[in-house]
């Protein structure tokens, strides 16, 4: 028979029997959080297909539909399940697209920060000396400032440096850059700590003896052994990255209203607050909180499940 299905079957069995899956199965809150995160990610990926309206197509917007309440409130229209904003945009559709951008920026900046932090941490621990001192002093200074302030500054400088005509297209990259440069320190510290232990192990010595270059020792031998704790840091930081992006967008220096993230939607909704139009601001806020809370819960669970001391 085919060995491939056999192997897949084995892997699947091993996963089902693993400690990780066992602790997952035993924690109902984690299962709920996982389902919420997966649902939101799927909704974000398939937003263009499942959204009832296209919030960016100006030709379909009608001011006659503006500020409609959610469908279950008197005066609501079933076509706009969660109501509409001041320009007649469907809140549900805007929400799906907004979650898409929030999750995208969150994942991209975590990937960027992780790459940067892991490289610098490995380098600091493996090379040591002045390089180590320099990298870790920069890390010390960066971590003593609150992330939101650092992100605001990097974001502000990037906006000042870029020519105005490029700013609109580059804004998502500026955000990823700013959040990534703000959050790399924790990865670097974690990797540095475990690399300092690993680099004196015999297998590293053996690799050095057979004449491998430092770069391949770091990347192919040490890295796989220090990556575990990094995954925990990455999960927790995904929540932080999404929050920073939302805060920047809310402050008006993040995603523009033409391409809103959840933070931008909350900013837009905030302007309608005093006319009693609560649905434009409440739904994006709820989705943001739900997303961040679920990711935090998953991170907490992963940290405990991977920590051998707590078994």
């Amino acid at each position, binding site marked *: 028979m085919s060995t491939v299905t056999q192997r897949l079957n084995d892997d699947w069995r091993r996963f089902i029997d693993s400690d990780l899956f066992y602790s997952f199965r035993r924690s109902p809150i984690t299962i709920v959080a996982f389902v919420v995160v997966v649902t939101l990610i799927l909704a974000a990926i398939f937003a263009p297909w499942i959204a009832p309206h296209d919030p960016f197509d100006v030709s379909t917007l009608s001011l006659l539909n503006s500020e409609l309440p959610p469908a279950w409130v008197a005066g609501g229209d079933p076509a706009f399940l969660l109501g509409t904003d001041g320009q007649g945009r469907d809140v549900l559709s805007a929400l799906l697209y907004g979650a898409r951008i929030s999750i995208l920026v969150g994942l991209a900046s975590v990937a960027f920060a992780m790459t940067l932090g892991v490289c610098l941490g490995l380098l600091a621990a493996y090379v040591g000396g002045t390089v180590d001192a320099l990298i870790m002093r920069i890390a010390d*200074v960066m971590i*003593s400032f*609150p992330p939101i*302030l650092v992100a605001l*500054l990097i974001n502000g400088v990037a906006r000042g440096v870029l020519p105005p005509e490029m700013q609109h297209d580059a804004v998502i990259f500026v955000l990823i850059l700013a959040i990534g440069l703000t959050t790399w320190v924790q990865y670097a510290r974690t990797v540095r700590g475990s690399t300092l232990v690993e680099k004196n192990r015999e297998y590293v010595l053996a690799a050095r003896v057979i004449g491998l270059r430092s770069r391949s020792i770091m990347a192919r031998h040490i890295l796989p052994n220090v990556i575990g704790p990094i995954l925990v840091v990455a999960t927790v930081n995904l929540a932080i990255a999404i929050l920073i992006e*939302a805060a920047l967008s809310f402050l008006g220096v993040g995603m523009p209203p033409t391409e809103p993230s959840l933070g931008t939607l*909350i900013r837009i909704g905030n302007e309608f*607050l005093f006319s009693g139009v609560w649905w434009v601001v409440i739904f994006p806020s709820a989705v943001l909180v739900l997303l961040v*809370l679920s990711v*935090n819960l998953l991170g907490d669970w992963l940290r405990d499940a991977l920590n051998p001391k707590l078994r």
Partner: protein
Amino acid sequence: MIAFLIRRLLQGALVMLTVAFIAFSMFRFVGDPVTNMLPQDATLEQRTELQERLGLNDPLPLQFGHFVTNAVQGDFGISYRNQRPVSDLIAERLPATMEMVFAAVVLSLVIGIPMGVYTALRRDSWLSHLFQGVSLAGISVPTFVTGILLILVFSVWLNWLPSFGRGDVVEIGGWSTGLLTVSGIKALIMPVITLSLFQITLIMRLVRAEMLEVLKTDYIRFARARGLTNRAVHFGHALRNTLMPVITITGLQIGALIAFAIITETVFQWPGMGLLFMQAVSFVDIPVMSAYLVMVSLIFVVINTIVDMLYFVVDPRLRVDAGKNTTGA
């Protein structure tokens, strides 16, 4: 002690110099200061005159030297947007932010410590589980969402509290305070709750963790063996030893609160430094941005240094071999 003090001060000075360098680079290289400071129809003579006056033709190290000398004297130049000295703008806004941050610190201690003690002592009561659940929510709900919800409920629906501004303020020797008028206090309530919510959670979790740890130690068991009452053991012995890290974290968090105040001030249109900074960011008003950066960094460095020294005074283990850092702190 002296060596430690000097090393700590030098470290602080180095951080401040780095920050000053970043601030200087922002001023010098982000946009053209001359274009930003002159009206649109300025002549070429005016441009060269201003260039000369700002010292932009000097070598860069000399310019940086001037920048630092001026900054030390509190001179950060003229705001591009308001055409007023940046130091005046900041001095005007400082009391509003400081009052809000101070009130938030007090509130978070007054609520956070009892909650932490309770959840540590009664680990399995339903109220503890409720506190724990609420604390997780406190970490996951962004500041601006809390603020908006409060405005929606208490300003828009119930119409109890004002949603923006500071209310009436009283001037006392150049310091404007809102604590002496009814409208000032009312205006303070929601921003302070918004700002302190995260801190309450933080302090509660910290006190709980420390308390649980301390309760397991030998001296607590000994105190119990001596037949002391629960009350004396919990509050006289256990709580006292958990408070040291709480004071440290609170000190370090003051800086974070000033930064978080940017968001809170934007939500409530609170006329503090954070709002000034946000306006500066959206208008790329670099002198204000760099002055804010230097100010906040200074507050940070001063607090961090003081906290480090307090530790040194309070914890004798650090004194024996501070160089080796064997305590793992």
